[in-house]
């Protein structure tokens, strides 16, 4: 242990001696660097905000006949087929973005976080597969187009909201938790507004909720760039 500058009493040090302030600066810099490579929830919120706004607006505008023609089934005006395609593609695009962005950001990191991430990801996937099958069963049992439209939206949003709340609880991420609560509130209101207003509520309040989350997260990062770092608690001078 004489070749590394730790116990050398004299001589040219391989590294200049550190003072306490410099050490804390180094710790803060490395912590910030690690944080900067983590998934950026602002981008993920933006992707989902855009997908909901675009997708639900397409459903709303065609169901009301403001754009294109609604599909009239059993005397009930449903959004046009292409609007459902736009909605589906928007959701898939946001999903692909989320998975690619998170996977890239977490590449090369294994252990507890990676195994939680994988299980959480599969929870989303299996949850939606099971929900789709159950909704299929509801249709088979004789649910009409209006019931199906309302139930599909309510069930999806309940699942999304609960998963956001669970993720927020695990990561101690209040923004994420609050978005989960907001989605469930908006979806509950949307059930009672009746179609096609349901879609407008989802587009404006649901999509808008993600954008508000994005702005709040941005402000939080500007206030506290090393937020979430263990050192921020351990290394903060008392009274500073």
């Amino acid at each position, binding site marked *: 242990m004489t070749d590394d500058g730790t116990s050398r009493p004299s001589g040219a040090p391989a590294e200049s001696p550190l003072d*306490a302030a410099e050490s804390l600066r180094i710790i803060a810099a490395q912590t910030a660097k690690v944080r900067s490579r983590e998934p950026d929830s602002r981008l993920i919120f933006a992707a989902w905000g855009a997908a909901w706004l675009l997708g639900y607006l397409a459903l709303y505008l065609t169901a009301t006949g403001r754009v294109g023609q609604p599909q009239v089934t059993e005397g009930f005006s449903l959004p046009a087929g292409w609007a459902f395609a736009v909605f589906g593609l928007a959701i898939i695009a946001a999903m692909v973005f989320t998975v690619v962005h998170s996977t890239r950001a977490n590449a*090369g990191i*294994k252990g507890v976080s990676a195994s939680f991430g994988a299980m959480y990801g599969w929870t989303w996937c299996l949850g939606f597969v099971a929900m789709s099958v159950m909704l299929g069963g509801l249709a088979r049992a004789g649910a009409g187009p209006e019931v199906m439209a309302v139930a599909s939206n309510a069930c999806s949003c309940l699942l999304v909201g609960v998963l956001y709340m669970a993720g927020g609880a695990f990561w101690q991420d209040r923004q994420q938790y609050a978005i989960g609560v907001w989605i469930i509130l908006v979806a509950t209101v949307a059930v009672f507004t009746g179609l096609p207003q349901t879609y407008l509520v989802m587009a404006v309040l649901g999509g808008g909720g993600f954008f508000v989350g994005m702005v709040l997260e941005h402000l939080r990062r500007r206030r506290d760039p090393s937020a979430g770092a*263990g050192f921020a608690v351990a290394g903060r001078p008392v009274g500073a």
Partner: protein
Amino acid sequence: MSETGLDPVIHAQARLRVVATLAALSPGDRISFPRLQDLLDMTAGNLSTHLRKLEDAEYVTILKTHEGRKPASYVELTPLGRRAFESYTASLTALLRGTAP
């Protein structure tokens, strides 16, 4: 620097950067050697040297594995290393306040 009461294993610029980076990960997480190298801007040889010293002090564990046919190394801060880093930052804070232990 022992008169300051600071852990000499951590209190050297290169190793402090390594330990601070590992401590910023969640407990129980390990990071691949290339990604750690990228976060630190250090050469592979230099990083290996410092990791060996941290391993000797039992502050890190290095897991050697294979990804496909390629050998891969993952580095993790041990609970002992995390505690040492926490008491190191606490000592720095105390020094800055002028109440060295």
